[in-house]
């Protein structure tokens, strides 16, 4: 055996094969997907849902309102690109439905929130929040707000002309990314996966996938100094179709429920 023969054998191992074209195409398709850029057209949501009354899941509102350390100097160009990609990944095009599900534990109690929202007017939304086995479900469509009571299988309808909006950790992250207060703090490994770590002025730390920049985890500092980690189980954009539109409607989700009309609360 000579070194020439070894060189020949080494080259033979690496020689292109017929099946390489399949891999070439498949990888190119993956890159094409990665290159898809979502236009930044999502309107900014404004106010909090009035029915977010479950104590455990009030976390969601708390999480985005806690003050934290301020930002420092502007990020480097590479970091700016990461922040831009992260923002894009959370900015859905018009005429879509964003579907988000987050889960976590607070004081040992499982908490979770799942919501669907239209990205075009009237920005209808439906949300389910739960803590320790209890759930509340509500919806708004720009003219009426709905609240579902599973105990009586009743939907309470209240006239409400305010634009639907919600308070949610994910929304807070998007706002901070959009306003330039966020900064990249390197990478972190969670459950064996390397993720971009982005710190927000609110004190929340968000972790993003290094490939498609989707939000994966949120670390939410609490008043007692503890951190509640929320996992973003689902972050997806659905096309607006008659079927997916049902996801925004409480009545469509509970077809056998009784509807109870209520009058709008008088303003102070």
């Amino acid at each position, binding site marked *: 055996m000579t070194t020439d023969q*070894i060189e020949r*054998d*080494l080259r033979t191992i690496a020689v292109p094969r017929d099946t390489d074209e399949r891999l070439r195409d498949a990888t190119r398709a*993956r890159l094409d997907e990665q290159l898809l850029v979502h236009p930044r057209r999502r309107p900014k949501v404004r106010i909090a849902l009035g029915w977010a009354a479950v104590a455990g899941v009030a976390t969601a509102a708390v999480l985005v309102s806690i003050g934290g350390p301020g930002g420092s100097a502007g990020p480097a160009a590479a970091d700016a690109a990461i922040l831009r990609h992260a923002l894009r990944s959370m900015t859905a095009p018009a005429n879509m439905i964003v579907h988000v599900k987050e889960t976590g534990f607070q004081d040992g109690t499982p908490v979770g929130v799942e919501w669907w929202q239209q990205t075009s007017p009237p920005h209808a939304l439906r949300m389910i929040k739960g803590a320790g086995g209890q759930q509340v479900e509500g919806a708004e469509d720009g003219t009426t707000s709905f609240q579902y009571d599973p105990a009586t299988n009743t939907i309470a309808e209240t006239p409400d002309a305010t634009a639907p909006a919600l308070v949610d950790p994910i929304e807070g992250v998007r706002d901070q990314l959009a306003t330039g207060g966020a900064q990249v703090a390197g990478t972190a490994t969670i459950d064996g996966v390397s993720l971009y770590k982005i710190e927000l002025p609110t004190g929340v730390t968000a972790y993003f996938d*290094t490939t498609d920049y989707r939000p994966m985890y949120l670390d939410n500092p609490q008043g007692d100094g503890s951190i509640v980690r929320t996992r973003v189980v689902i972050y997806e954009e659905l096309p607006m179709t008659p079927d997916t539109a049902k996801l925004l409607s409480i009545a469509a989700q509970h077809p056998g429920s009784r509807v109870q009309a209520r009058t709008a609360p008088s303003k102070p």
Partner: protein
Amino acid sequence: MEVRAFLAAPALRVREADPDAALVAAAREEPRMFLALYDRYFDRVLGYARLRIRDDATCEDVTSTVFTTALAQLARFRGDGSFAGWLFQIARNAVRDVHRRPRAEPLPLEAACAEPDVEEQFLARERAAQLHAALRLLDPEQQHLLALRYGAGLAFDEIAAIVGANPGTVRVRVHRILEELRRRYPHDD
């Protein structure tokens, strides 16, 4: 003597312009231009992976991962070295990650049958398996050099730019590694 004199010479290196610089700059402006870099390096990265990893499916996974990672992190490539150097560093890291995983039992070689081409294929696989086994006995830096040379098919000056040595040094190192590999490689005689 000649080799010793060569190794002792001061390492004067002139940094040449990166042949991929224009495409990288274009990809920064228009991310789809990354596909041109992909086309340029696909075969080389796959060849590199094939020399470092025996399992075909893992080679394919690594190759895909290298390019999706490179695209995701292109903004982090600051142009301090060549794009090829950066890309093959990603490949090297991906291979290292594979080697760190608990090793699965390699699939058994398919049994040879009477048909000559299948038998030939079997023998080629067996030979490749032996060579891979010998390669794995080298240190990772040596494997990296051989994979750049015979897997990616890079010229000595291209490898030199990647590893930060001069081409002559790379040539000598590769030759020595081949000698070492020859000693470890099973002989027919």
